[in-house]
């Protein structure tokens, strides 16, 4: 499934070649991640690992980094996050997509943060990372982004608005794509109403937690409040 990614830049010289180059670099980082990690590209490293043609220990350093992060995510969420997802036959295969999307967006965001005097907002299929302002902005400043959180029961409505100048906002739910979120603890796809949004410094961790909290057990929010310092959740 293709996913639209958009980058908005607010800057006094938004038409400058430098802005254009940095935005292009940011998109290149996402394209690079897609080449390495897409399970739908036959020659991606993830596809080769899935076919047991590539030993993860010999994969690209970025792939090894993601494998390590997936392991940490599984531990932090007490198993509610997994990179082992069932295929159509039910066999578990390596698929770190749930973490890579946020990871790639964070990498692109760190490139955008190089733009002096600019602030940016990157939206990757409904998950958002903003940043760029170096000083603490005042309310109403162009460094502050207003991120609407979609109402999962009526997707044409905005249920809440989060204002932030740095960090990520990730939402997980079954509203747009049905039961696509897998719960490794019960080994089922979850199709319940509602959504979980997590806001925090890194989009990758916000997204990992949003998914884990959506599919995970009732005890998980307590764990989240203990181990995910700087992150908060909005349940709708």
């Amino acid at each position: 499934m293709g996913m639209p990614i958009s980058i908005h830049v607010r800057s006094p010289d938004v038409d400058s070649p430098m802005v254009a180059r940095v935005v292009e670099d940011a998109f290149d980082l996402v394209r690079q991640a897609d080449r390495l990690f897409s399970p739908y590209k036959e020659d991606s490293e993830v596809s080769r690992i899935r076919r047991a043609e590539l030993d993860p220990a010999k994969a690209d350093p970025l792939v090894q980094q993601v494998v390590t992060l997936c392991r940490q995510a599984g531990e932090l969420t007490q198993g509610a996050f997994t990179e082992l997802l069932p295929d159509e036959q039910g066999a578990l295969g390596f698929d770190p997509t749930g973490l890579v999307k946020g990871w790639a967006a964070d990498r692109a965001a760190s490139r955008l943060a190089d733009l002096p005097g600019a602030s940016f907002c990157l939206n990757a299929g409904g998950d958002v990372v903003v940043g760029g302002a170096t000083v603490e902005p005042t309310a109403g400043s162009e460094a502050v982004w207003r991120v609407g959180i979609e109402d999962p029961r009526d997707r044409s409505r905005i249920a809440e608005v989060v204002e932030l100048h740095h960090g990520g906002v990730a939402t997980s739910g079954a509203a747009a794509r049905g039961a696509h979120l897998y719960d490794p603890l019960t080994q089922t796809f979850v199709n319940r109403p509602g959504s979980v949004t997590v806001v925090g410094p890194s989009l990758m961790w916000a997204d990992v937690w949003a998914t884990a909290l959506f599919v995970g057990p009732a005890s998980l929010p307590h764990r989240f409040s203990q181990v995910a310092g700087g992150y908060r959740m909005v349940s709708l």
Partner: protein
Amino acid sequence: MRRIVLVILSTITTVVLLFSYHTSTSTTFATSPLTQLPASPGASPRSPSPNKSGSSTSRSSPATYTGGSADTRWGPVQVQITVQGGKITTSQAVQYPQNNGRDAEINGFALPILNQEVVQQQSASIDTVSGATVTSDGYLQSLQSAIDQAHL
């Protein structure tokens, strides 16, 4: 506020990408082909002569702009917007794939959501939306083209 809207819209950059998601085994609109558009990061198509049917200089009279037709794997998608007072007041797909019953069913479901999302984002004075959203690439391409024509 108007200045901010101008800044946002004049700097929007959209690229179509590519991450793949496993969808559920259950059949829902979630697997709609409309959202499975191919990666085509080329420039948005533009019509040389905007189908402008009003004046954009007056804040009170609405003007209509039609975006270029964006080709997708399932057929062309074309979006029309109405602008009043520097804001998009309506957005609708005037051309979309409806080659078979399945296309028509999917688009009948998806397009009203996309249309509303465009208007909603403006009227709520928010900058972006976080949600379980997968917005159609073709829709975005043609929408961008319409926004460019409107000089928003």
